[in-house]
């Protein structure tokens, strides 16, 4: 699991048309400079938007990758929802404590997390 490396690859792809051309020509070569697991490489090459979101890829990075693959907006949102249904809550990163359930469930989980931390401190 190397969320940083996945996001770094996507960051560079998103902002550079030359990198996009290279990636279109040869995905594996374009991915090779990055320290990625086989699972991450597969998710990127497919592309498995839901799994990438589950890994913790920031949506502001992921939405560009979805647009690069001409995935429509509502389809992009649905793929993320499906991803966390299939694979479970976001593993890491800024969404790791919010997940996919929406505000109410998020609030409950954050409260539980705070209570858990409070118990640990005492």
């Amino acid at each position, binding site marked *: 699991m190397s969320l940083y490396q996945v*996001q770094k690859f996507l960051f560079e792809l998103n*902002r550079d048309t030359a990198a996009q051309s290279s990636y279109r020509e040869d995905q594996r070569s374009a991915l090779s400079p990055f320290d990625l697991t086989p699972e991450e490489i597969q998710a990127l090459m497919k592309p498995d938007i839901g799994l990438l979101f589950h890994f913790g890829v*920031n949506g*502001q990075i992921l939405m*560009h990758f979805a647009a*690069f693959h001409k995935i429509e907006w509502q389809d992009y949102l649905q793929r*993320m929802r499906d991803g966390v249904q299939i694979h479970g809550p976001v593993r890491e990163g800024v969404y790791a404590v*919010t997940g996919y359930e*929406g*505000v109410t469930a998020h609030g409950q989980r954050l409260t539980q997390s705070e209570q858990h931390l409070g118990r640990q401190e005492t």
Partner: protein
Amino acid sequence: MTLVFAGVCSHAPGIVGRAHLADEVAKDRLYGAFDSMRERLEASRPDVLIVVAAEHFANFFMNNMPSFAIGMAESYEGPIEDPEWLGISHTRIPGARSVSELLINEVMQGADISYAEEWKFDHGIMVPLHFLTPNFDLPVIPVNINCQGPPLAPLHRVWAFGEALGAAIEKLPERVALIGTGGISHWPATPDSGKINEEWDRNFLDQWSRCDKDAMLAYTDKNSYLDAGQGAFEIRTFMTISAATSGLPGTIHFYKPIPIFAVGCTIATIDLPTVDI
């Protein structure tokens, strides 16, 4: 006083890119509010436009993430997004290098910042420019506050940055327009995209319009995240404009949640004293 215009607006990519999916009446009202903001901006006859934005990993990444950065380039380009997806053609935007350099030096008197001679604009700047300078002919100085990749600058440091920016603008001989652009409550580009906490938004905008510094500095990222989504980290851009304009009140010209745009769309200006310069 060289500040001739100050305000805030939304920048969500859907505002242009998904306009065809929006409720037409709501979209037209928002576009009308942007037009009015453009007319006010043009009437102020600015020489340069400073845009305080919250970019989304277009230039800055977690390998070297500045809390605050100011552009110092001759020109900029954008959008980084697929122009078809964003609904805005790729273009070059003039900068104002010498003004940037003076501005940066002055801001450094009060805040620690980074500067950048390369900068690609994403929707965070391109969407406001699309409406406010549709010919992309007004020299722009981009300013970025990291609102995406935690750790984030604490709000009191954002306020200090805004004050330093305001003091620096006072030293510039040019007529300066200043815009902050960000979302309030929103969960952009996530499965919760489209969710908007209108009550939270209206409360914040009320505080912003009264420039209630204490109330705005009382927000915490943890609670904002809980109540208003990770997009609410971008209130930093609005607060910077408040701090830069020395506590002047503002007027909310437009606010309406438009879910397909994934944000409560906002157009507001600071009530600057009339200046004749």
